[in-house]
């Protein structure tokens, strides 16, 4: 059950979402069935970003994951991988039943995503790595004259890492217009709010000053995400950045807007059933 009576009492609501967003969250819950723990809040803030990219923006072939001309999706905040696994299962890269093996013995679906999973381009989990790998893939596409675009999703907490800003300078220097940094700005990291732990503001100004063309969007508004992503690239001279304002733990009111659900353990069967029924009854 949920950890406290207080949480149980507020665990009555699922905040507004359409059917598809609820379905993808059900797949995330499926991933938690076996292990009963994971980076839940970190995945829930990501769902709409990944959903829109895979539904409406990216070119890829689930049956041919290594198709050279595919677009590359890099989950630089690798701990949010439950959301990525859910979409990969939905799109047919992996069997949805495999989700139940998440982090269990014998599984290839780890608590941070590895490139042994079809559709996972880079092994991430140590923060501040995936972005640079994405830069290399963007450079490779340019040299090889491939149409591939690179979408790298970074956590706002991940922006604490200096390597991200090394990468930002590199992207601007090389005018990697076919690369987009997408920031899942859910305002929380493990120990508290990003504002308190290491303030990133003014975040948009930072990306602009590092040479990016930047737009901000509500990271849960599917229509708004579509509109913004379809405008990419924002510049013919600069790489693009989209700051997606999201809610940590989006979907379950008791999990929203708190660092306490960044990592959640003790998600026993009644709790998960309760969360699932909330999604179904909305």
């Amino acid at each position, binding site marked *: 059950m949920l950890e406290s009576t207080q949480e149980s009492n507020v665990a009555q609501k699922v905040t507004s979402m359409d059917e598809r967003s609820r379905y993808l969250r059900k797949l995330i819950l499926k991933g938690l069935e076996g292990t009963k723990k994971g980076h839940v809040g970190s995945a829930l803030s990501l769902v709409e970003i990944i959903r829109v990219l895979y539904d409406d923006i990216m070119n890829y072939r689930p049956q041919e994951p290594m198709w050279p001309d595919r677009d590359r999706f890099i989950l630089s905040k690798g701990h949010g991988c439950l959301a990525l696994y859910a979409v990969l299962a939905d799109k047919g890269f992996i069997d949805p039943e495999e989700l139940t093996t998440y982090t269990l013995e014998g599984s290839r679906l780890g608590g941070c995503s590895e490139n042994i999973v079809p559709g996972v381009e*880079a092994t991430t989990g*140590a923060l501040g790595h995936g*972005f640079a*790998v994405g*830069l*290399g*893939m*963007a450079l490779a596409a340019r*040299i090889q004259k491939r149409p591939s675009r690179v979408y790298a999703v970074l956590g706002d907490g991940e922006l604490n890492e200096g390597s991200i800003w090394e990468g930002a300078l*590199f992207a601007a220097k090389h005018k990697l217009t076919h690369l987009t940094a997408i920031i899942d700005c859910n305002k929380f990291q493990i120990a508290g709010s990003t504002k308190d732990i290491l303030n990133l503001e003014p975040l948009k100004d930072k990306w602009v000053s590092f040479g990016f063309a930047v737009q901000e969007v509500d990271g849960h508004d599917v229509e708004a995400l579509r509109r913004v992503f379809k405008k990419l690239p924002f510049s013919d001279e600069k790489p693009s950045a989209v700051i997606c304002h999201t809610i940590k733990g989006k979907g379950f009111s008791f999990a929203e807007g708190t660092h306490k659900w960044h990592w959640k353990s003790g998600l026993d069967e009644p709790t998960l059933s309760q969360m699932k029924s909330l999604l179904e009854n909305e």
Partner: protein
Amino acid sequence: MFFTFKDSIYELAKNDKRVVLIITDQDAGLDHMQKEMPDQYYMEGISEANNIGVASGLAADGFIPFVVNHASFGVRRCYEQIVLDACLQERPIRMIGVGGGVATAHLGPTHTTIEDIAIMRSLPEMTVIVPCDAAEMKKLMPQTVNWPNPIYMRLGRYGKPIITKDEHVIEIGKAVVHHQSNPVKSDVLIISTGAMTQAAVFAAGELQKDGVASTVLHVHTIKPLDHEAIIEHACRAKMIVTIEDHVLAGGLGSACLEAMMDNVHPKNLPRVHRIGFPDHFIHEYGTQETIFKHYGLEPSQIVVRIKSFLSNE
């Protein structure tokens, strides 16, 4: 040695479009490469970690990136990128560590790199190469292109005199015999790497004058180690001396001890003496030669030390 590296990388890149050079803000003198092959030449900022990540992305899409850093920063600053973005993901990145060992002793302990071999050889998937001179490095470079693993190659300020001969067969993973007084048995087997092989060859000549039969086995590839050659020669020797310009913990000597102890019963092995740097940072400034002298690694000192080991047997 870096001059020869530049010639080699230019030739490799010219003949293979997969070869890409990423340099971390060094005076490379490769303007002609930049001009002729702009897609294969990247002079990047002092952002060593990012450059390894970028190389990983390039390698994921079929490129063979050579990333040049000063050895100290390339190993120390980039450790996590090397572990995760090169080794774990099995990306064939070639990490070239310039100024390895005490080649830049004038810049002090921030630059002297005496623990790199231990760090790099502990990493799964990694290959570790330490050539003894420019001629050997030139023979190794073309082999690196299609080598399946990530490679760390330490380039020191070695090379004079050139001791690699035309008849030496230089293959990644294969140790090279540089001196052999007697093919059947040796009073001392000297196993060395990098700059120390020159000292080893000198020592072997001096020992021979005193009637001491020695073999010099040069190990340019510390990982994967040529177990077969080491064990074969070890079993024919009365004593073994390993020499490296590296701390004793985890370097060539450690690797040889592991290989021998894992494969041969100790009673069938001779006494092993390891020569290298002690377990502290190099605080002295100077040149490679003055540092070697300070720590007893100068060729003439090596001779004295080996004679001392022999007399105490």
